[in-house]
């Protein structure tokens, strides 16, 4: 009973005071409760895919948004995870529960490798060089079709679960765990170092921090998360094909990331949850079927013209303000900070500020 009351108090003082946190809570609960309310196989299928891409986009954000290593070849990790688990489970007969972890591990190794190769590169050089890696792997896969299945890929994988609802729950739980894990990591001291590396790497190194180690670790973590998503994706679709390595997927994740707002984790996830179902939904209309990518691109372009920092930071700035004194965030319609009582708006009169203190 004590713990219950304690949890409720935490919820009231920490979550419900901010609309963004309330929204995240509602979103997570809504995802978990959806199959009880609306059990449509098509909707569940789309949301399952959305969850995989959400993990993928969040892992890109940790690397590109936080650390500033804008990776144009993030599909490499996705594809590495997908192909590893496919090869292991088909050629060696390893059950998918194990081979998924192997896929994540191999993708982690790829992340480490790419990070190692790109340690000396910066900015645009890094972006353009990383674009090359998935294409090199793709060229190799096409050159040895006996091993990799060539253009058709490797099909006939086993699903993790049989019913759509079970698959959906696997995807949602995996997504929530990985995304919250990445978010916690990015919010920790480790994440602060990453922010600093993006802003000024020389200064960070001058402060005695081994930036190379941090960059390698981030590459490995992002690779592992993306590979995990790729492995789950391959087992869900029951095929690991060359489309998991294509430039289009790499660009797609860049669009999701920047559209949602970089260096937030929740931004890219929100972007995936908005854009992916939207494009699928547009595809169901006969008139829009061929135009859905066009509409997608136009929407991204228009949204960007009005919110160049991305969707999530823009919305957040509209509904919340940061306290000028203690930097904690407050609901936009409060006049004084909920923690330190400082006036949030410049035009608040002295009398009002005094009232706020009581």
């Amino acid at each position: 009973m004590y713990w219950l009351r304690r949890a409720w108090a935490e919820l009231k003082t920490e979550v419900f005071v901010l609309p963004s946190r309330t929204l995240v809570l509602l979103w997570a609960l809504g995802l978990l409760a959806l199959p009880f309310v609306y059990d449509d196989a098509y909707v569940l299928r789309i949301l399952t895919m959305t969850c995989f891409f959400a993990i993928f986009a969040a892992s890109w954000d940790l690397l590109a948004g936080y650390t500033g290593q804008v990776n144009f070849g993030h599909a490499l990790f996705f594809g590495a995870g997908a192909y590893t688990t496919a090869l292991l489970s088909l050629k060696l007969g390893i059950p998918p529960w194990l081979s998924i972890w192997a896929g994540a591990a191999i993708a982690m190794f790829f992340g480490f490798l790419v990070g190692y190769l790109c340690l000396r590169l910066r900015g645009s050089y890094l972006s353009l060089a990383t674009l090359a890696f998935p294409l090199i792997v793709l060229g190799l896969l096409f050159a040895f079709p006996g091993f990799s299945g060539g253009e058709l890929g490797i099909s006939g994988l086993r699903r993790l679960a049989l019913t759509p609802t079970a698959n959906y729950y696997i995807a949602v739980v995996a997504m929530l765990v990985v995304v919250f894990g990445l978010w916690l990591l990015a919010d920790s001291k480790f994440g602060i170092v990453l922010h600093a590396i993006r802003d000024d790497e020389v200064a960070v190194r001058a402060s005695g921090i081994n930036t190379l180690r941090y960059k390698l670790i981030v590459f490995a973590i992002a690779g592992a998360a993306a590979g995990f998503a790729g492995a789950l994706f391959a087992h869900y679709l029951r095929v690991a094909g060359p489309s998991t390595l294509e430039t289009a997927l790499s660009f797609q994740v860049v669009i999701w990331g920047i559209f949602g707002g970089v260096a937030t984790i929740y931004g890219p996830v929100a972007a995936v949850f908005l854009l992916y179902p939207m494009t699928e939904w547009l595809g169901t209309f006969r008139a829009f079927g061929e135009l859905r990518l066009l509409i997608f691109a136009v929407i991204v372009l228009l949204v960007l013209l009005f919110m160049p920092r991305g969707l999530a930071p823009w919305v957040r700035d509209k509904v919340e303000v940061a306290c000028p004194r203690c930097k904690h965030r407050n609901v936009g319609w409060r006049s004084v900070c909920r923690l330190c009582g400082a006036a949030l708006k410049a035009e608040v009169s002295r009398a009002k500020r005094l009232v706020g203190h009581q």
Partner: protein
Amino acid sequence: MIQDIFVTGLVNGGVYALLAIGFSLIFGVARIVNIAHTAFYMLAAYCFYTLLVKVGMSFVPAALISVGGVTLLSVLCYRLIIEPVREHESAVLIATIALALIFQELMLYTFGGHFLGVPSTLEGSMRVLGVSVPYQRLLILVVAAAMLGGVWFLLYRTRLGLAIRSTANDIEVATLMGMNVHRIAMATVAISVALAAVAGVVVSPVYVVDPFMWLAPLVTMLAIVVLGGLGSIKGSLIGALIIGYVEAITVFTLPGGAYLKGAVALLIMVVVLLVRPEGLFGVAFEEER
């Protein structure tokens, strides 16, 4: 076979040079990573196809109109879409990706996804070094050389070229010296897209025209630009020739070379970057923080 490699490498290298130099220019002057660069190349090819086959124009006016039209379109896109988000680098990046996707989808919707063939500008072939070279490929080579000469003249012998080079060197000092940096950026966009459009027009009779023709040259072009050093014109030219020859050698000597040519070219780029992170002719970017 050596002669084959020589000629193919030279022709492909010329086309790549046209693309890479334009990309390099706009990166140097405005720091825009223009993913839509090769999409303009695709647009020019489609425009040329429409004017030539559908409208029935003759070659020269069709080529001129397509290059001019695409250049105009690029300036319009720059003013309406890129300029408003210039301060946000990441926004510029996905704006160009979105533009490229829009062009691709528009062409897919208008012309369908199948390959379109453009009739050769010049029929026949001649023998060079014992290999028969179609006149069309020679035309590509001549046009590429002429355009490169033109760009060199523009950059190193005119006032505009001086302004472009100084803006690329140091944008703040260029502003202080009274140059209109925005206008220079716009002129650079026009020049660079015009080069890509010329490449698209001359190449369309040799390659097939389809809505996805911008992806493969995009990757190769990026590899060349990184290999030669971002923003360096000389580096782009030499990088283009290197990659052109590497691809030709791979295709002619390795089994399954057509699949591997991209991979080998990119591998060369990665190796060069490992040895020299700023590319062959790039400025060391320690000072750029």
